[in-house]
């Protein structure tokens, strides 16, 4: 289906559509279960990112728009349940637990989801730690798929220099990932 292919390809209008159509149900669910609008926004965006990543990497192939919506909602729901179980929401949990529908997530699925969530969180931190200039170049090149000439015109920079800057920015990310990997290995040794 064309829309789903465009979703995997990060088409802005399709992302807008998916966002607009699926946010209200997540908002409704979270407001009903002790959350507020900010919780709903965070949880929904994280669920949408996870869904996109799973589609892009072939772990989930939606058959229709509604199955995509159902998948986003499920991820959002599981994430919200995790949050309610966390320390800060434990007191609230007792009050609302009866309202929360029974979850059908297996231990394996939950473990995989948590691994994926940790990966996404690390990626987001690394991206945030890049300088604004790097973000401007990399997002235009890899996300918006603009050419170096187009980016050069927007950022007042010649394409050859941009080529070097793009490489340098990606190596900064790589360095952050190397450090993170080394930290994780150290932690696993203990």
């Amino acid at each position, binding site marked *: 289906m064309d829309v789903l292919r465009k979703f995997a390809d990060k088409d802005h209008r399709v992302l807008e559509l998916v*966002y*607009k159509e699926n946010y209200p149900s997540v908002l409704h669910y979270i407001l009903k279960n002790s959350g507020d609008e900010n919780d709903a926004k965070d949880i929904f965006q994280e669920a949408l990112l996870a869904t996109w990543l799973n589609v892009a990497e072939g772990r989930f192939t939606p058959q229709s728009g509604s199955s995509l919506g159902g998948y986003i909602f499920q991820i959002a729901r599981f994430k919200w349940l995790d949050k309610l179980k966390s320390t800060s929401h434990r007191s609230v949990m007792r009050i609302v637990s009866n309202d929360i529908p029974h979850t059908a997530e297996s231990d394996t699925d939950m473990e995989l989801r948590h691994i994926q969530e940790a990966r996404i969180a690390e990626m987001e931190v690394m991206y945030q730690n890049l*300088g604004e200039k790097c973000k401007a170049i990399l997002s235009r090149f890899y996300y918006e798929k603009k050419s170096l000439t187009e980016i050069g015109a927007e950022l007042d920079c010649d394409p050859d220099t941009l080529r070097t800057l793009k490489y340098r920015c990606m190596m900064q990310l790589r360095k952050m990932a190397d450090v993170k990997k080394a930290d994780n290995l150290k932690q696993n040794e203990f």
Partner: protein
Amino acid sequence: MNSERDTSINDFERIEAFLTGHMNEADRVQFELEIRNDPAFAEKVTMQQEMLRTVELGAMREKFEKIHQVQIGKSGKPSQSKIWYAIAAGFALLIVSGIWWQSQPNEFQALLANHLTTDPGLPVPMSAQAEGEYVFFDAMVDYKMEDYELAIEKWNKLLSSSPKNDTLQYYIGAALFNQGKYAGSLSYFEEVLENERSTFRYKSQWYIVLASLAGENKAKIDAVKPLPGSPFTGQINTIQSQIQD
């Protein structure tokens, strides 16, 4: 691990072409063979793919924020907390207006704001250069990334062995200027201006005027005589006439 030494720019761009689907069939077959036969290379490809995903994901999150503001933010009813925020914002606006009224920029600052420009730096060549040139352009990349402190540190090391190098003097001055260290930048620009063979004289003179505006030094601005043929003559004359008023 030094990531840049670990993956050269040529390797990086080959991997990028593979990951983004910009590799022709024959090259792709060869590339896939390399991945199968060389685990270290395969690891590089995996790492680069992860970096690519990181950018896609980070950029997507930023887009979500915009989509939320446009699609959701506009339609929602203001919550109680939003109403309180609005009231607080109203008070804040009143206070800020008061401060603004008292801190109107004087004519020097207003002129500086109107004429302020940032030198974009020199294009960075892709080919390998001699050691000194490599350090210079490496610092130029830092300059372009707005890491002025690091660029100055690298250029200063080069300047200690070539103290009369006008390119170094000019760009150290420009980096200081871009950091708002106007007084500190002046001596570098002045030295370049003294060098009659320098191609950076026009720009140096222009930045001397701007740095003097920042320092509100009317006498110094008045004393500037635009260099013959300077593309900044018109702007310098305008500034000089405006500070007379």
